[in-house]
């Protein structure tokens, strides 16, 4: 558990960072980038793992199992799709 204001700071700074990092992106990258950030929030997997890891009742276990399953799907699917989309930028010749 985290002290309120520090959380706020982290939230603010992370938001800033996210914003700045994206701010100059060409349209062609909109979809890959959406997909890439979709992959990044696949980090929910670690949360799901913790939830399942600490689940006690069967209900908790079932929900936890589902959470991990979902999260893994998000992460792996997000990665593969993004990679496939970014393949066209392979030969960055001329640079």
């Amino acid at each position, binding site marked *: 558990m985290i002290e309120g204001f520090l959380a706020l700071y982290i939230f603010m700074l992370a938001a800033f960072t996210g914003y700045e990092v994206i701010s100059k992106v060409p349209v062609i990258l909109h979809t890959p980038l959406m997909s890439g950030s979709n992959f990044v929030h696949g980090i929910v997997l670690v949360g799901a793992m913790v939830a399942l890891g600490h689940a006690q009742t069967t209900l908790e276990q079932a929900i936890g199992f589902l959470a991990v399953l979902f999260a893994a799907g998000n992460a*792996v699917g997000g990665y593969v799709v993004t990679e496939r989309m970014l393949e066209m930028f392979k030969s960055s010749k*001329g640079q």
Partner: protein
Amino acid sequence: MDIKLLIEISYFLAAVLFILGLKRMSSPVTARSGIVWAGWGMVLATLVSFLYPQMQNVGLMILAIGLGSVIAYVSAKKVAMTDMPQMIALYNGLGGGAAALIAAVELIRMVGHGHALINTVLLLAVVGAFIGTVALSGSIIAFAKLQGLIRRSWNFNGQNQINLLLFALILLLGAVIVAQGTHSALWLVAGFFVLALVFGVLITLPIGGADMPVVISLFNALTGLAVAFEGFVLGNAAMIIAGTVVGSAGTLLTQLMAKAMNRSLANVLFSGFGSKTSAGSGEAVTGAMKPIEASDVAVMMGYAENVIIIPGYGMAVAQAQHKIWELTKLLQARNVKVKFAIHPVAGRMPGHMNVLLAEAGVPYDLIFDLEEINADFPQSDVTLVIGANDVVNPVARTDPNSPIYGMPILNADKSKNTVVIKRGQGAGFSGVENGLFFADNTRMLYGDGQKMVSELIAQVKEL
């Protein structure tokens, strides 16, 4: 080494890798390495999470991960390039669902075991649960629509009012749960989730296929937020950072995408729920003109091998000849082979294009006439038509009733991709509709010739 410390350091590194990965993904030059960086962050974070103290159900966990991964991997590999958007929607929905489920576990534990959560955390858990659930059901609808499983858009009167009502109800339920804390009834929690699911479905159903990408991006940002909130609940910094970064980047991205479609976000979401512009599939209907952005054309051209430029009367009107030559030089510097194709009657006098290209300094050996170049179009990765119309109109080959029937044309329609720069719906000299503009591999870059080529130049420089 202290396990706890190891986990923290790993999470920290993962967060850094995520940020750097996203940063790299926002430039075409580094985009590919970006996803790899982020991928390593994910692997690291996942692996160390097994080391969490007092982890149980590890077998189950591995099973879930394996199962989820394999299904996702296979489906992601198999899906056609054109179906990507709906897959992103699906994976995103899964993420939102996971976040919601984590919240569910926490809430159930609170209700069931009297495991107390402090107020703010409970609040965050509930809000995260709501957002995650909406992202889940909404994304599934988005998937179904794009996949063609749901074909029509659902519009009825009072839609907005009903949604508002539902939202108020959910708000109320949430407030009750937060207020009652440990004393909340389990059915209340269950009801909360169900209503949220329904809400996600209802707000997504009316939105038309063409607007879906924007909506998916929005759900993506929301999932990020949900993940961040659950991160707070779990005290998991990696989730907080990654979630927040995605939430903020995703919001910006959503706005940019809406802007690229010349719509405001509110317009996409509420005003008529997007059904006006297009309904049904995300793929544009065959027979529609498909607009494109300068930045995309720049990437297409910048990474092409062969480019053919076809100038027409519009280039003369826009006086874009100097810009076109500058663009050509830029492309040549990137080892793109550029040729100019001049139609015998392009412009309004014999040699009109020659005068202009000579003025701009285009060397004669880049300039080819119809007979010399027509065989090259199938090898052209991108054909850029600037202000030409009649001289690239395939109708001249196909429609004996057309006034231009029988006129030889430049076979721009045979090239792999064609981009047409023109200001709007203006017809050519002959006033005939142009079949090329509606072709599958043709994209329209609307705007004044000089202005658009300037933009292309700026964008190619960025590559």
